[in-house]
């Protein structure tokens, strides 16, 4: 398997890490998109058979580097967190279909919850590069879990909520989705836990604003082989299970079925 160099690894909050690696593909020659993911093998031995999907957080084309930000929670991501500069890692990607960018968007809303926040950073960067105004609503459990705030502030107007009120407003991201927030917004993008995505979709549906959701399903292969990662999608042919690793993880919000 092709391996790539780990350039740096640092702990950025309680249990949360930022890792920079050499891109497994030449970014300047690839049609990568924010919202795509990298698929990491966490061990060279056969104890861990499944790769771990982690979203692209930042792409640096000039130096051909990619940054990922992730929570070390289970055994696999804990192993990833042990890598340091000079190590190599077996990774494929960027994979899947990310967030589409639109020409006509006047202002966009990006909504992230927890470890759903990182992929929105590259998105905010790309939106800003197109001259689009970005408003970011970022939700965390508590202040010690808050990540990438300064990075977002450089690109967007930032609103923060926490479950316990230890940073920003106490509450959920949807508490901020009132008329004053959505005024002038032509598109939204959301990434976070499934209950959050569902609540965002339901809250914004009446406003008629079109949006995209980045879904999180357990993956067998990440490359379309196993049909493990499916989610229910409603399209012209009705409701069916679609592979989120290949056709997603990002889908138009109106197509996503929660049941």
């Amino acid at each position, binding site marked *: 398997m092709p391996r790539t160099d780990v350039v740096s690894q640092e702990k950025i909050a309680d249990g949360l890490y930022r890792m920079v690696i050499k891109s497994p593909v030449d970014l300047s020659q690839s049609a990568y998109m924010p919202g795509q993911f990298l698929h990491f093998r966490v061990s060279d031995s056969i104890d861990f058979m*499944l790769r771990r999907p982690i979203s692209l957080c930042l792409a640096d084309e000039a130096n051909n580097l990619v940054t990922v930000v992730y929570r070390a929670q289970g055994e696999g991501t804990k192993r990833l967190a042990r890598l340091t500069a000079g190590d190599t890692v077996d990774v494929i990607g960027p994979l899947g279909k990310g967030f589409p960018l639109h020409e006509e968007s006047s202002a966009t809303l990006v909504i992230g919850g927890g470890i759903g926040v990182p992929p929105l950073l590259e998105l905010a960067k790309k939106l800003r590069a197109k001259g689009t105004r970005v408003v970011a609503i970022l939700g965390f459990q508590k202040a010690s879990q808050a990540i990438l705030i300064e990075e977002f502030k450089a690109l967007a107007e930032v609103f923060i909520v926490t479950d316990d009120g230890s940073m920003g407003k106490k509450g959920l991201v949807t508490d901020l989705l009132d008329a004053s927030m959505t005024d002038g917004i032509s598109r939204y993008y959301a990434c976070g836990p499934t209950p959050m995505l569902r609540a965002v979709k339901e809250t914004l549906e009446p406003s008629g604003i079109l949006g995209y959701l980045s879904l999180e399903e*357990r993956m067998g292969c990440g490359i379309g082989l196993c049909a493990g990662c499916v989610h229910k999608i409603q399209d012209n042919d009705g409701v069916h*299970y679609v592979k989120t690793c290949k056709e997603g993880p990002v889908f138009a919000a109106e197509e996503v079925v929660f049941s």
Partner: protein
Amino acid sequence: MTPHDVDLAVEFCGLQLKNPVMPASGCFSFGKEMEMFYDLNLLGAIVVKATTLEERMGNPTPRVAETPAGMLNSIGLQNPGVEKVIRDELPYLRRFSSLPVIVNVAGTMVEDYVAVVHRLNDSQDFDAIELNISCPNVKCGGIQFGTDPEMAAEMVSAIKEASNRPVMVKLSPNVTNIVEMAQACESAGADAISLINTLIGMQIDVEKRAPLLGNGIGGLSGPAVKPVALRMVYEVASSVNVPVIGIGGIFTGKDAIEFLMAGAKAVQVGTANFTDPYAIPRIVDEIKDWCVAHGVKRIDELIGAANPMSRRRG
């Protein structure tokens, strides 16, 4: 001697394989996805996802879970149905000049298995059928045919009569006596036996105090099942005369060689494709390297090398 001097070609059911390694059903979709990784001509043959008469949605998620040195899946035979498979999937595979195509057939009752085979008979875009009477993931996924020798024999005879192509029969390991199953299929006309499908297993999500998989139970695969698979291949290869195809936990060239030595004519690789998308060409190279290091000129020399009973049957 160099890797080029090693002859890896094998033959079974009239299929000529340039090497004995092919993907296992359900672990390679219909092949298109692998284009970005390598040329499918590197495969010995291809076995595509289970195909049923009508489209199948499959089971609720989560459908996969990681286990020590393996995984559980409860996909539930999600596939677009035989019409679409013939129209949209199989023709693509004919672009590869030397790639025998094997279609894995599943269903609920003898009649719908037979209907799939009748429909397939008109297609020129495949070379053999692998009869899946061993899927643990749907209530009537054929597994009842895979655990009762009489029902298996009835199914195999019906499919043999219906099919104008060779019929391999894929066995479930979830039985008390695998030899009895294999012999029943052979007597009913099976042209080859492939084994094993997955072992039924489970994982509990302790936070939710509930089974992790949406379907509750799932099929265990990967290196964790290899010893079980090898034992079954060994036993079956020493008790039937038709070719045996070994499946279960193959990750390296050495794993594949173990199956060949146990009496398998060829092998299938499933879960390893998920861990390492280049698994199959890597395994082929590792087999060649092993042969060079051990002065083996023809892969045939290894088949049954550790199982004298299987050699006598050949």
